[in-house]
């Protein structure tokens, strides 16, 4: 009879020769509190062995066990008719029509990237690709969401350069196009870069496979790269703060990525799944074999037994503890159908990959590990995967942040010098400036399906053989979340949705990456809780459920936390690839129309950061209902075929948005003449980052129809200007003030900002 219902109990296991004794210090080193250790002992019915302690420590780390976030995550909406797979699997899956399903997920590699930017980011991409193809989907696009300190630091330039290279080299080699992402430079991320990678995969609905170990007696196989000593205890490590000496102590944790093996693994995995010779497959990601095997057992309601000496290793003398916790990359755990191991071997042999049977599925509910036939770990699987204690903590807003939010900013609203200078300053700020320096290092066109490359409001990949396409974007303004976590998180979701509707995609679902500081601190827990609540409300309003995500806490250096950064990765569907809207002007003579209204906030803006080095003030408010109508209006305008270009108004405000639409990719810029006549101060009109706004262009003959259509959705809309020839330059008037610049100076500021800083040998000076 199966004891997989949680009634399984551990048998006594003698200590393994050579393993350290378990002392309170050893327990503490494994990141378990006294209470948690007591819980381990009660689950086990005895004290754990050293190997068992290692297993618990990994599975009950924040990274795998979501101790501090699980209760909050339960608040998020996860259902919709089009959701096929919600949170809990390797990736979420939604129905995108015509029999196709889209798997997608985002994941962080913040800590590894802080230590070794190139390998850290590369292996981050590798991990997220595996999460997608283990669902049976073929990866079709990657996005990367990055945060660094200010680029005036040599160390930051080194990190930025290395991270971009790592993201690029890995995805380029495997052959998955990058279709977008974001990057923010702000001193709030100085010691703790954020590296989040998102992947999208397509499959036919019936190709979906999940990772639940089933079929008693089915063999468990380790596939792909050999297991080495790298990254042991990465999961625990990812759940701790970095300290001054982190560089030294964490060196052995570096994992080296091998995108070539990944490509073979990708092809082999999809072939294995199609063959039917396997019943489950999972990436050996964080916490390696431990988490993949125990999670498979947990989900399948079964048990597993594994022999460590059968695991192909890269180094001699590895202990079961090391093998179980190694985070060597490009490895998979596969449950083969009994009797079809030969077929599995044949497929792997074709792809020149190694595979070994390392155990089998059992029905006793235990996670059992043997070494030369002797049991070295015997743990009830269910409590291991699901029994991690979860906490609901006290959250209190920090007085310091309240102070910043309430700061009187009026003195900063009088521009120093003229407004035209401010425009060039903002266009030349790395946060607003063109990101070509990044994505020109990424293959964006491989697979010949990229309809909108990075540089658009959202990336778009068509579904070959149909008229459809999927779109994706990542967004989060951490300054807004810092100043006001709940609205900030709503703004992140709203901006993502706006980016999607601008290209013509219907927003359908999100994945998210909660990048926060140490949740044991009340003010950080407050940020986390409020941000989750904001995300919940926005996702509910837009009907974009959460199908998965990742939590990265403890992003602190020497006690200083990053801005709370809940990165939203949103996907959408386009039914007709012939109705994709670009974000740059296309035709001279087109009218320029603004949808939405400036609500007047300047708090948290790039303007304040650039001109006053300030992150303060009340960030923009979010009107979810108004946003929803704006999205509907925009989609309707696209369906009616009225729009020639559309761009979401975000960092740098209306002035920068118009400038970006005028400059495009630099190939064929246009002039602009526009004017706004709101009652706000000029700085706020031009550079305020109020939400809920989209700038679009249309043929003058359609302007009436555009305005009428917007009115049907009760969305404020008005013509604000005209697209001109490039020789006419850029002019934007606000009542009696105005900004004007030549396209040449704008081009220089916008396109050269990042290259000027980075192409001067990034490793020079530190």
């Amino acid at each position: 009879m199966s004891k997989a219902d949680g009634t399984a109990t551990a048998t006594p296991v003698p200590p393994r020769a050579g393993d350290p004794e378990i002392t309170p210090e050893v327990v503490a080193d494994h990141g378990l509190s006294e209470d948690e250790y007591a819980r381990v002992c009660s689950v086990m019915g005895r004290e754990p062995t050293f190997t068992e302690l290692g297993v618990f420590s990994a599975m009950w780390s924040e990274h795998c066990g979501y101790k501090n976030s699980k209760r909050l995550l339960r608040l998020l909406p996860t259902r919709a008719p089009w959701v096929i797979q919600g949170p809990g699997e390797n990736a979420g899956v939604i129905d995108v029509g015509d029999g196709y399903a889209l798997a997608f997920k985002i994941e962080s590699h913040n800590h590894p990237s802080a230590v070794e930017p190139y390998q850290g980011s590369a292996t981050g991409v590798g991990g997220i690709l595996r999460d997608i193809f283990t669902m049976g989907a073929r990866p079709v696009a990657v996005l990367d969401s990055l945060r660094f300190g200010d680029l005036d630091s040599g160390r930051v330039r080194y990190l930025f350069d290395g991270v971009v290279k790592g993201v690029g080299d890995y995805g380029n080699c495997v052959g998955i196009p990058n279709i977008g992402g974001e990057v923010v430079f702000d001193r709030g991320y100085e010691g703790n870069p954020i590296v989040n990678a998102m992947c999208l995969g397509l499959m036919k609905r019936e190709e979906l496979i999940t990772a639940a170990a089933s079929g008693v007696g089915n063999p468990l196989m380790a596939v792909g790269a050999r297991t080495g000593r790298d990254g042991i205890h990465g999961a625990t490590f990812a759940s701790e703060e970095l300290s001054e000496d982190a560089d030294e102590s964490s060196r052995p944790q570096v994992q080296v990525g091998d995108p070539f093996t990944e490509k073979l693994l990708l092809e082999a995995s999809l072939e294995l799944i199609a063959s039917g010779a396997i019943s489950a497959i999972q990436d050996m990601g964080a916490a390696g074999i431990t988490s993949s095997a125990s999670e498979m057992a947990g989900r399948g309601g079964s048990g597993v037994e594994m022999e460590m000496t059968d695991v192909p290793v890269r180094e001699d003398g590895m202990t079961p503890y090391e093998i179980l916790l190694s985070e060597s990359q490009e490895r998979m755990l596969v449950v083969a159908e009994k009797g079809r191991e030969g077929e599995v071997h044949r497929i792997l042999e074709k792809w020149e990959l190694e595979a070994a049977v390392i155990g089998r599925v059992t029905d006793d509910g235990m996670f059992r590990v043997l070494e030369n036939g002797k049991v070295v770990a015997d743990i009830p699987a269910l409590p291991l995967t699901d029994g991690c204690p979860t906490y609901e903590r006290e959250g209190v807003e920090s007085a310091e942040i309240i102070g910043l939010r309430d700061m009187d900013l009026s003195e900063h609203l009088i521009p120093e010098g003229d407004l035209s200078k401010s425009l060039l300053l903002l266009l030349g700020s790395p946060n607003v400036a063109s990101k070509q320096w990044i994505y020109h290092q990424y293959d964006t066109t491989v697979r010949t399906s990229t309809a909108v490359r990075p540089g658009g409001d959202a990336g778009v990949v068509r579904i070959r053989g149909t008229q459809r396409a999927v779109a994706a974007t990542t967004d989060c303004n951490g300054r807004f979340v810092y100043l006001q976590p709940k609205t900030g998180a709503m703004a992140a979701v709203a901006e993502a949705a706006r980016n999607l509707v601008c290209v013509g995609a219907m927003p359908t679902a999100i994945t998210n990456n909660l990048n926060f500081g140490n949740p044991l601190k009340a003010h950080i827990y407050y940020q986390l809780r409020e941000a989750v609540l904001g995300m919940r409300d926005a996702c509910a309003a837009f009907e974009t459920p959460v199908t998965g995500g990742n939590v990265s806490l403890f992003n602190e250096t020497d006690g200083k936390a990053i801005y709370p950064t809940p990165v939203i990765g949103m996907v959408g569907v386009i039914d007709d690839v012939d109705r994709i809207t670009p974000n740059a002007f296309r035709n001279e003579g087109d009218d320029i129309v603004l949808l939405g209204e400036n609500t007047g906030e300047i708090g948290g803006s790039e303007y304040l950061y650039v001109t006053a080095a300030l992150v303060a003030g009340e960030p923009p408010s979010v009107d979810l209902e108004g946003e929803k109508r704006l999205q509907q209006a925009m989609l309707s305008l696209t369906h009616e075929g009225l729009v020639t270009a559309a761009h979401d108004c975000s960092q740098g405000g209306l002035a920068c948005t118009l400038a970006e639409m005028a400059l495009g990719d630099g190939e064929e810029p246009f002039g602009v003449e526009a004017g706004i006549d709101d009652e706000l101060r000029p700085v706020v009109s031009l550079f305020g980052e109020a939400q809920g706004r989209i700038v679009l262009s249309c043929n003058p003959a359609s302007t009436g129809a555009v305005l009428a259509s917007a009115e049907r959705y009760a969305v404020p809309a008005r013509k604000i200007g005209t697209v001109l020839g490039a020789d006419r330059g850029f002019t934007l008037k606000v009542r009696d003030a105005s900004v004007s610049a030549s396209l040449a100076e704008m081009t220089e500021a916008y396109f050269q900002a990042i290259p000027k800083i980075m192409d001067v040998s990034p490793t020079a000076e530190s």
Partner: protein
Amino acid sequence: MSQYRLEVRVKPRPGLLDPQGKAIHHSLNSLGWDGVADVRVGKAIYIDLEAESAESAIAAAEEMCRKLLANPVTEDFAVALEQEAAAS
């Protein structure tokens, strides 16, 4: 001051995966060199340098390794004056 030619070798740290070495190893084996048991790939960097003495040239190169040439997290390095044998 005299002119020195230094040879810097930068090598992946033991224990770290060396995908490049692995691929070459695999290829050599399939080309018939069965006796190949392991391959690791590093860089050989040749630096022509003006210095007071051989010692100070070597010391400078070591400093270059620490600052620029080697990644302290993933690589070890060794510096030597170029040997005649190696110069061929």
